[in-house]
């Protein structure tokens, strides 16, 4: 089976000035998270969509889905975790308990605040996760990356051609992901900021899927303003 996990667990500490998590703010005429879920709803290759939100937003999310998308038994809202990886683990546990995990099961994990993801990116993720076991959506880095450990002086300037900016989806063979996650030491778990890192830590290949510059993440108030502007712009 093919699952999508929409990660909406974050409380948006960087958004500022609002108590509503950024995924529930309005983009155009509906919440950001609804735009994002729709991209997966219309893809008939995806069997189930699991939306992971903070506990106190589960009912709200269910109401929004009912209001904007309608009754859809393939969308399930459950509680996320403290960290991104806890959230990911919750989705895998849910899948295991309710649907079972076979050797071919894959999961596409996607930020709820990336509503501009394209059908092509989702299809490429499905293909790459099936074929390679793990993939990450990236675009080539356009700004020069500088490394600084102390935050005051430059340690090094890596060759930009070798660097990419990570987007989502990140997609995995679920069994492989689960086995790798279970084998992590506590020290390894503590440094995990990214699901793909689980694979690289264990020397497993992660295939690159080409992202899009339009596949932006709405993180700061500016992003939402920008996203709203470009969405309004279409009628000009």
């Amino acid at each position, binding site marked *: 089976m093919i699952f999508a996990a929409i990660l909406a667990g974050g409380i948006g500490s960087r958004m500022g000035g609002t108590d509503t998590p950024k995924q529930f703010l309005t983009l*155009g*005429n509906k919440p950001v998270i609804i*735009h994002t879920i*729709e*991209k997966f709803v*219309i*893809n*008939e*290759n995806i069997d189930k969509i699991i939306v992971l939100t903070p506990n106190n937003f589960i009912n709200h999310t269910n109401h929004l889905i009912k209001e*904007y*998308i309608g009754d859809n038994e393939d969308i399930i809202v459950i509680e996320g975790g403290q960290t991104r990886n806890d959230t990911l683990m919750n989705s895998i546990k849910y899948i295991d308990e309710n649907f079972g995990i076979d050797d071919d099961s894959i999961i596409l994990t996607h930020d709820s605040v990336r*509503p*501009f993801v*394209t*059908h*092509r990116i989702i*299809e490429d993720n499905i293909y790459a996760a099936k074929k390679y076991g793990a993939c990450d959506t990236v675009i080539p880095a356009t700004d020069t990356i500088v490394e600084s450990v102390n935050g005051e002086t430059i340690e090094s300037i890596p060759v930009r051609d070798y660097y990419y900016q990570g987007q989502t989806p990140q997609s995995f063979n679920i069994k492989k992901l689960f086995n790798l996650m279970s084998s992590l030491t506590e020290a390894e778990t503590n440094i995990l900021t990214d699901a793909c890192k689980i694979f690289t830590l264990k020397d497993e290949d992660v295939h690159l899927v*080409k992202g*899009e*510059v*339009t596949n932006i993440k709405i993180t700061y108030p500016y992003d939402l303003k920008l996203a709203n502007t*470009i*969405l309004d*712009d*279409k009628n000009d």
Partner: protein
Amino acid sequence: MIKMINIVYRLKSPKFFEESIDEIELDGVIVRPSHLSICQADQRYYQGSRPAEVLEKKLPMALIHEGIGEVVFDNSGEFKSGDKVVMIPNTPMGEDVCRANYSYNSKFRGSGFDGFTSDLVKMDSDRLVKLPDDFNPHVSAFIELISVAYQGISKFSEIAITPKDVLGVWGDGNLGFITALFLKEKFPESKVLVFGKHLDNLNLFSFVDGTYQIHNVPDDLAIDHAFECVGSSASQSAIDQIIDLINPQGTINLFGVSEYPIPINTRMVLEKGLAIQGNSRSEREDFIGVVETLEQNPQLFEHLEKLVTNICVIHSLNDLKEAFDKDYISHFGKTILRWNK
């Protein structure tokens, strides 16, 4: 109506494409384009050779009106996800007494509104015709162009009153090739002669009964009906030659687009009692006709494959630009875009 975000790749100004964010309604069929084909009309926008006021009015706009795709989602239940379909660019917006491809009430993709260069395309179910899985996708990408020839030939059949023994096709480009091929298919008993300028191109018309370079036509040659597939200012000399060679009460079927008004020797049109019929675009019945004809005559694919001269995989807007540049310098054949953007 529920609307979903969609990314569209539009020509912003000549030679400059941009990503833009749009919304599509989910009340029709959602198609993912797979193979697209560049038409001269797209090239005229890309090169900026349309009049400035036309460019100003129409751009930004997604180009391309020839293409096929796969159904992603269908609310109507008519198609299954994964069905291969050819997309019909003409979009009627109201009833009319004429064919919908000539109606003022119709809009056309890549001309009146966005063409197919986008992540997804929303179409009404009657704007799609299902394709058999085994159809060559590169040839299928330009079924729209084939359907234009097909509708012209169908209309010709309705108005021609004199014998169809000798049919002349002017123009040795893509449309001339397709028109000659389908004339031969529909009228196997007729002699199909092709008149062109480029010997290299004419040599590819191996299925017709004769080819002539336009400056080297025998004096005693006569035709019953003519198909002008030349276009631009060269239409004038083609139409002149047609009027010279055509038998009385023949039909002249015009297909070639010109940016300039073309003078026609009306005195001889009157004297010979000729009928001139214009042709542009096509409608659903023509697409269905082409798909059926190709299904029943798979050998046509072999000939049509000769038209596929460039296959470009499109991952980025730069790839799209390169494909247009490559197409521009090709003197024959179609540039096919494998749409991975």
